[in-house]
C-alpha cells in the first residue's frame, strides 16, 4: 500500500513535470504572411500617389504607400498596411513609405502572402540636372493689346537635350511680376517679358510686343424698309430705329443700363435711312418704300418669292422687308439671310466676286414686330439682331426659331469669347427672377448680354470675335452696300435698280428668330 501510494505520487509528479516542461519548447515565430486571414488572398493593388514625379531637396516628405488586398470574389480583405512588404526595384523598403532621396526611376510593389501587387513607377529627379524651357503654343504674328488676343504658354522640362514629361508646380512671371493664370492677354500696349520659375529654376525669357488695338473705319449702311400691304412705319420711326441700330453697333445701346460683356466692342458700323430711291431721286420718306402684293398672307416661301418684287440693289441698300400676316411656323418670327463672302470665313459659303444675288439677302421683319416695346422683343433690338445675321453672326447658342440643339463640341457661333449654352434647357427651366442668367456648356454661370442671344438678354454687347466676323463680312461680303461693293456712305444721288429674279429661283431656308 505504501509503495503504491508512493508510486502514484511519483507518477503524478512526473506527468505534471512533463506537462510543464513541454512548454519550454521553443516555438518558431509566425510570419504575418502566414496569418490565416490572408489564406485566400488573390490580388493586391497598390494605390497610385497623387503624382509620380518627385524632386530631391523639394519633396522631402516620405511618400506613403498603400496597398489593398482582395479575395477571389473581389472583396477587399482587411489588411493593415504594416503587413505589406514594399519593394523598390526589388529592394525591400523599411516601413510603409518611400523616401525620394536619390535620383532614378523606381518600380514599387507591395507583397503579402506570396502575392505581388501591380507596379507603380515613381520618378525622382534632381532639379540641378533639369532645364526649364518656355515657349508659346499659339505664336501670333501680331499680338494686339485688345484684351482678347491671348497667349498660351508651354513649359518643357529638359534633361540634357531630351524633353521629359514631368508635371511640377511653376509660376509664370510677366515683367518680373507673378501671374495667376497660365495665359496672357494685354489691354495696354507695350513690351512684355515672360519667364517661368519653379523647382528653384528659371526658364528662358520670352519677349512679346503688344501693339495698340486695331481701329476700323466707320461703314455706314443705307437701309430701305419695304412695307408690303401695310403702312405703319413713318420716316421718324425709321430714323429712330436706324439710330438705335447704330447705337447697338457702336457699343452705345444699353436699354437696361446693365453691365456689358468685358469684351464688348464698337463694330464701327452705322445704319441710316436710305435717302435716294431707285430712280435717283430723294425719297419722300427716307428709308421707306411702300408697295403692295396681291397676296394677303405670306408663308416664308411666299415672302421669299415676293421679296424679289422689291429687292433693291443690295450694293446700295440694306433691304428690310416688312410682311404682315405671316403664316405657318414663322407666324411670330422675323428672319434674315446670312452673307455670301468671297474670302472664306468659318460657317459660310464662299462665292466668286460678281455672283448675282440668288436669294433675298436682307432682313424680313414680321409685321407684328414693327412696333413692339417690351422686354425680350423691342423692334430696334430685333433689327440689331437680324442685322447681325446679315453681317455674318450666328446665334450664340446652337439652333434657331424653336428648334435647339444641346451642347455640342463645336462653338456654334465660331466666337470663342461668347459662351454658348443649352437653349432647350434654359427655355424649359426659365426662372423669371434669374432670366438673364445662363449656364454655359462649360458649366460656367454668366449674364447674357449679347445681341445675338434670344430673350431674355441685356442686349448691350457685341464681342471682339463678333467684331472680327462682322468686319470680315464688311470687307469681303457680297451684296452689301459696303466700300467692297463700290458703295459710298451717304450716297446722295445716282440711279439704282431692282435685283433681277433668277430664272430658277429656289427657296433657301433663312435663319429664323422667334420672339417671345
Amino acid at each position, binding site marked *: *500500500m505504501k*509503495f*503504491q*501510494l508512493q*508510486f*502514484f505520487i*511519483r*507518477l*503524478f509528479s*512526473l*506527468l505534471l513535470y*512533463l*506537462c*510543464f*516542461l*513541454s*512548454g*519550454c*519548447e*521553443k*516555438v*518558431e*515565430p*509566425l*510570419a*504575418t*504572411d*502566414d*496569418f*490565416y*486571414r490572408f*489564406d*485566400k488572398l488573390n490580388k493586391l493593388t497598390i494605390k497610385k500617389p497623387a503624382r509620380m514625379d518627385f524632386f530631391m531637396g523639394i519633396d522631402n516628405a516620405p511618400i506613403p504607400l498603400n496597398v489593398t488586398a482582395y*479575395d477571389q470574389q473581389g472583396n477587399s*480583405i*482587411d489588411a*493593415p498596411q*504594416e*503587413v505589406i*512588404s514594399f519593394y523598390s526595384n526589388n529592394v525591400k523598403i*523599411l*516601413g*510603409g513609405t518611400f523616401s525620394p532621396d536619390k535620383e532614378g526611376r523606381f518600380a514599387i510593389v507591395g507583397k503579402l502572402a506570396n502575392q505581388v501587387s501591380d507596379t507603380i513607377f515613381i520618378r525622382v529627379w534632381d532639379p540641378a540636372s533639369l532645364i526649364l524651357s518656355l515657349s508659346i503654343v499659339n505664336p501670333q504674328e501680331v499680338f494686339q493689346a485688345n484684351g482678347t488676343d491671348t497667349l498660351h504658354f508651354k513649359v518643357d522640362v529638359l534633361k540634357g537635350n531630351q524633353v521629359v514629361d514631368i508635371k511640377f508646380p511653376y509660376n509664370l512671371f510677366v515683367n518680373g511680376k507673378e501671374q495667376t493664370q497660365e495665359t496672357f492677354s494685354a489691354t495696354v500696349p507695350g513690351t512684355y517679358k515672360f519667364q517661368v520659375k519653379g523647382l528653384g529654376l528659371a526658364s528662358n525669357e520670352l519677349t512679346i510686343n503688344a501693339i495698340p488695338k486695331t481701329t476700323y473705319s466707320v461703314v455706314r449702311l443705307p437701309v430701305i424698309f419695304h412695307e408690303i400691304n401695310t403702312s405703319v412705319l413713318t420716316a421718324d420711326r425709321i430714323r429712330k430705329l436706324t439710330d438705335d441700330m447704330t447705337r447697338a453697333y457702336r457699343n452705345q445701346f444699353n436699354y437696361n443700363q446693365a453691365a456689358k460683356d468685358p469684351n464688348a466692342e464698337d463694330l464701327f458700323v452705322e445704319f441710316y435711312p436710305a435717302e435716294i430711291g431707285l430712280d435717283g431721286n430723294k425719297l419722300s420718306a427716307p428709308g421707306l418704300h411702300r408697295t403692295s402684293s396681291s397676296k394677303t398672307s405670306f408663308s416664308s416661301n411666299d415672302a421669299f418669292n415676293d421679296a424679289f418684287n422689291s429687292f433693291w440693289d443690295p450694293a446700295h441698300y440694306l433691304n428690310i422687308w416688312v410682311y404682315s400676316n405671316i403664316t405657318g411656323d414663322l407666324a411670330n418670327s422675323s428672319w434674315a439671310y446670312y452673307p455670301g463672302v468671297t474670302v472664306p470665313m468659318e460657317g459660310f459659303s464662299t462665292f466668286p466676286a460678281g455672283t448675282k444675288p440668288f436669294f433675298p439677302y436682307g432682313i424680313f421683319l414680321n409685321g407684328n414686330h414693327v412696333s413692339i416695346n417690351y422686354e425680350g422683343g423691342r423692334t430696334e433690338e430685333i433689327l440689331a439682331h437680324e442685322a447681325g445675321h446679315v453681317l455674318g453672326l450666328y446665334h450664340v447658342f446652337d439652333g434657331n426659331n424653336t428648334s435647339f440643339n444641346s451642347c455640342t463640341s463645336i462653338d456654334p457661333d465660331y466666337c470663342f469669347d461668347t459662351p454658348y449654352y443649352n437653349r432647350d434647357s434654359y427655355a424649359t427651366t426659365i426662372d423669371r427672377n434669374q432670366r438673364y442668367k445662363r449656364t454655359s456648356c462649360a458649366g460656367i454661370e454668366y449674364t447674357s448680354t449679347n445681341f445675338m442671344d434670344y430673350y431674355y438678354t441685356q442686349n448691350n454687347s457685341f464681342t471682339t470675335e463678333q467684331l472680327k466676323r462682322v468686319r470680315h463680312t464688311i470687307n469681303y461680303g457680297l451684296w452689301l452696300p459696303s466700300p467692297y461693293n463700290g458703295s459710298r456712305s451717304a450716297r446722295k444721288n445716282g440711279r439704282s435698280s431692282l435685283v433681277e429674279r433668277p430664272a430658277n429661283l429656289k427657296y433657301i431656308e433663312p435663319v429664323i428668330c422667334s420672339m417671345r
Partner: protein
Amino acid sequence: MKLQFSKTNIDQLTSSMKILFTVFFLVTPLFICAQITRQDSISISKKKHSVNYLGFRFGGLASSFSHKNDLLIPAPGKKSLPAWHAGVAMDLFTKTHYNARVELSYLNKGAKETFTNDQISIQSTNRLQYLQLTALPLIIKPGYRKINPYIAFGGYYARRIGIKSKSKTGQGSWENDPVTAENLNVKNDFGYSVSAGVYFWKRPVFELRYEAGLSSVSSSSGIKNRSVILSFSI
C-alpha cells in the same frame, strides 16, 4: 571556456529532450512497476478485473496549431490556448493488464498565436468547438488492484460544431475576425492520441493525454490540431 548556443544547437537539444521525455514517459512507469512488484506475485491467484468503468470525464487542455506537421506539444501558458472539455467514457473488455475505452466529449481546441514582421504584431485566437469520439483500443496497465497506472493509445474523430476567431493588432483591442473563421473551413478532424493515467479502484481518476490531428483544419493551409489534455473522471 565560453559556451555559445546557436539555433541549431537549441533545436538539437529540444529534439533530444523530446526523445528523452518520450522514453522516460513510456519506460519509467514500467520500470517503477517492476521495482515494486513482489517476486511471488505471479503465484498469487489472479483476481478478476471484469467490471467495466462507465463515468463522466472533464478537465482542461492546452491546445495549439502545428504548422509544419511536427510534434508540437502545447503547454499551459501564453503560447497555447487554454480550454476545457467534458464528456462520458466507458471502458470495454477490461482485463487485468488490458482494456479498451470509448469516449464521447465536447471540447474546445484551437490556438493563440502571434504573427509578426518587422513592423507589426498580430495576435490571433481561434477557438474551435468539437464534438469528439475517442477510441482507445489499447490500454496497458500492470494490474494492481488499488492504484493502477496505465498507458493508452488510440485515435479520435471530431466534428466541428463552432468556431470563434478574434484578432488584435498591436495595442488595439480584440475584434472578431470572420475572414479567418471562414478560412479555417475544415469541419472534420481526426488524429491519434497517447495517454498516461492512473486507475484508482478501476476508475481512471487522472489522465494526461497528447492528441495530434492528422487532418488540417483549413483547406488553404496545413495547420493541425495539437492538444495536451488533463482529465479527471468520476
